[in-house]
């Protein structure tokens, strides 16, 4: 298969998704089910939500009154707007050092009888049923890592 062909297959697939011709649809919801176990994960764009155990010991409740704790990714870009639709029945805990450089995001604990809905302006919602704890992680970006290395060398 030539180079052109593989890229063309991918370009065509993306076009088909946009036109609703594929199994996956833009904005399609994804949810953790009762059968999920620790380690099961859903990507919402570049945010990974992973079913986890108890709250990590060194995580803390929010202490910054200006922080919108519904937003799970720091920043003011559209891409950063991974947000909890509501905080009812939901607790959010943070790594002690949490900033734009972190790869570890907030920890979400959902009480029984509630469902956490993580929304995003472009990606479909992710539903987390009650009784689950979810740890969030941010996608590693190789180019940014290289950029940091280059800046450190300068």
């Amino acid at each position, binding site marked *: *298969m030539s*180079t*052109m062909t*593989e*890229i063309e*297959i*991918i*370009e065509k*697939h*993306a*076009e088909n*998704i946009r*036109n609703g011709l*594929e*199994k*996956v*649809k*833009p*904005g*399609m919801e*994804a949810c*953790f089910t009762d059968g*999920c*176990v*620790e*380690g*099961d*994960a*859903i*990507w*919402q*764009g570049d945010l*990974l939500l*992973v*079913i*986890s*155990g*108890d*709250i990590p010991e060194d995580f803390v409740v929010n202490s910054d009154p200006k922080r919108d704790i519904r937003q799970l990714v720091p*920043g*003011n*870009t559209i891409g950063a707007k991974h947000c909890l639709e509501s905080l009812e029945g939901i607790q959010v805990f943070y790594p002690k050092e949490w900033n*734009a450089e972190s*790869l*570890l995001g907030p920890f979400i604990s959902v009480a029984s009888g509630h469902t956490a809905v993580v929304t*995003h302006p*472009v*990606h*479909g*919602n*992710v539903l987390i049923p009650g009784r689950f704890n979810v*740890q969030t*992680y941010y*996608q*590693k*970006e*190789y*180019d940014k890592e*290289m950029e940091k290395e*280059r800046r450190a060398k300068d």
Partner: protein
Amino acid sequence: MIDSLTPEQISKFDFYKNKWINIGLSTEPCDFEASKAHAREAYSYAELTCPEEFFLADSPKHAIDMIYERYKPDNKNDIVEATMFGNQEACWLSYYDFMLNELNIEACQPIMGLMKLAETCGWWHGYEDAVFFQHRPIELHLENNVLHNDKGPAVLYKDGYSLYSINGYTVTEQIVMSPETLTISQIEGEGNADIQSIMIDRYGWPKYLKVIGAKCIDFRDNDVEGTKEALYETPKNGKRLVVTCTTGRMFVLGVPDNVIKCEDAQSWMGPSELVNTKVKKFNVIART
């Protein structure tokens, strides 16, 4: 000697921070009359005689041209190096404003003129016989606190003088406004790796991979996530995973050189180890 701050003084931090961020990012025109008065104050604090001739330029370039025309220095860079940054001195003036007004440190008084000028004009140049003020930009675009605009200039002055910037990197107008006209020799001739990466992003990674004849080393249908993925090796820009997204877009993402399969590339992008779980690895069940 002050060795601690009161809670009340600490509570004023936000006021001074916001005040000076607003000054630094102001796009208001220069208040020429107020600036003249403030310049007189600044000269007076410096124990210098303030000149009587004042000029107002539309942009840094306009100011430099005016000054060059008047003084004809051997080197235009001398003009640039003598620039006072007016409102864009906000980052350090904010500290002195706090110390002067909240801690009553009178030693800060001599920079009052500079503080006032920061509130009324953009960059400026003070000479023995004339002062040249500049208007502030009429547009200033930031994203994540750095200059960024992928649809036009990040900084624009009223005479059209502009600066293009992507993610805080100063780039050419061509990279922002007509990236499709970039050539492979322009891209590969760029010495700054960060700017080169921006150039390829703007040019389009799929097109770039096709044009340079990048080699596909793995391809898969990712049935769990509903995506298709191809891993490419490029001669100068490492390995790239080309992947569809459930939103109908496609992305090209850099991955380390030791990655040889699409599956490994996807794993690399997630956490290398999970926190507080009985299992070591994550298992993707869906993607939105």
